[in-house]
């Protein structure tokens, strides 16, 4: 599987969003609010879509 440059950039960003938000909650910097958890789920979902599109 080869991901194009643009798509790879997008995928990296989505994973960074997911990881950064989860770490912020682990580190006590962010409350595990509904909105925060939705943002993580959304980033993972969009990342999965990108992979399927390839």
């Amino acid at each position: 599987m080869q991901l194009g440059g643009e798509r790879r950039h997008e995928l990296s960003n989505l994973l960074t969003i997911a990881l950064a938000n989860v770490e912020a909650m682990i580190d006590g910097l962010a409350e595990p609010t509904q909105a925060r958890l939705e943002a993580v789920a959304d980033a993972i979902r969009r990342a999965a879509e990108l992979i399927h599109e390839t």
Partner: protein
Amino acid sequence: MKPKRILVVEDEPEIAAVLREYLEREGLLVESCDRVSDALDVLARQAPDLILLDVTLKDGSGLDVLRAAALPESRIPTIMLTARSAEADRVLGLELGADDYVTKPFSPREVVARVRSVLRRTTEARSDKARAHSASVLRVGNLEIDRDFHEVRVDGYATKLTATEFKILSLLAEHPGEVFTRSHLLDSLNDTGEIYERTLDRHINNLRKKIERDPREPEHVLTVYGVGYKMSRP
């Protein structure tokens, strides 16, 4: 100590927001923007202490920001945020003067650790430089003799001295209170043999006109009658 200012250049708002939370917890001031043009505006307005720079931006390449940040007169420490695959950008960025990089997907903890490390390195390097420089500045009363820049400041204002006047003043100021005979001064100054005893007095007079409040009542370069000259003790 003044809090350090960090400029985050990142076009993904959610990433920028989490980075801000982490950096602010470290007591850092965070400013963020998502375009090359805005980043260049910030640099022109007030240089931050460090830049976190996404290399792939919507309106162009973050490397253009890096080029501006790495100019020798500003030399702002920069950490690149790049995709793991973007090796060419990373190499070019490091060659352009980036201090470090973090690959996406990154953990914000890692970014914070690298920010701290780069800030520590640059602060230490700067204070070493400042210390080395201040050792080369002699202060006597309202005079500052800057041997690195070959400049003398009177009450903070730069004054133009000739090379000979500068040498005389530095020599005397390095040993305040010590009397230099005319022949000792001439020996120390005369690499080329062009200064004679009678011209030495003229150099001293000219020097006094430039650095003394009242050249007829000198406070710095004092005449020791029948012997020579000395610098007053501060």
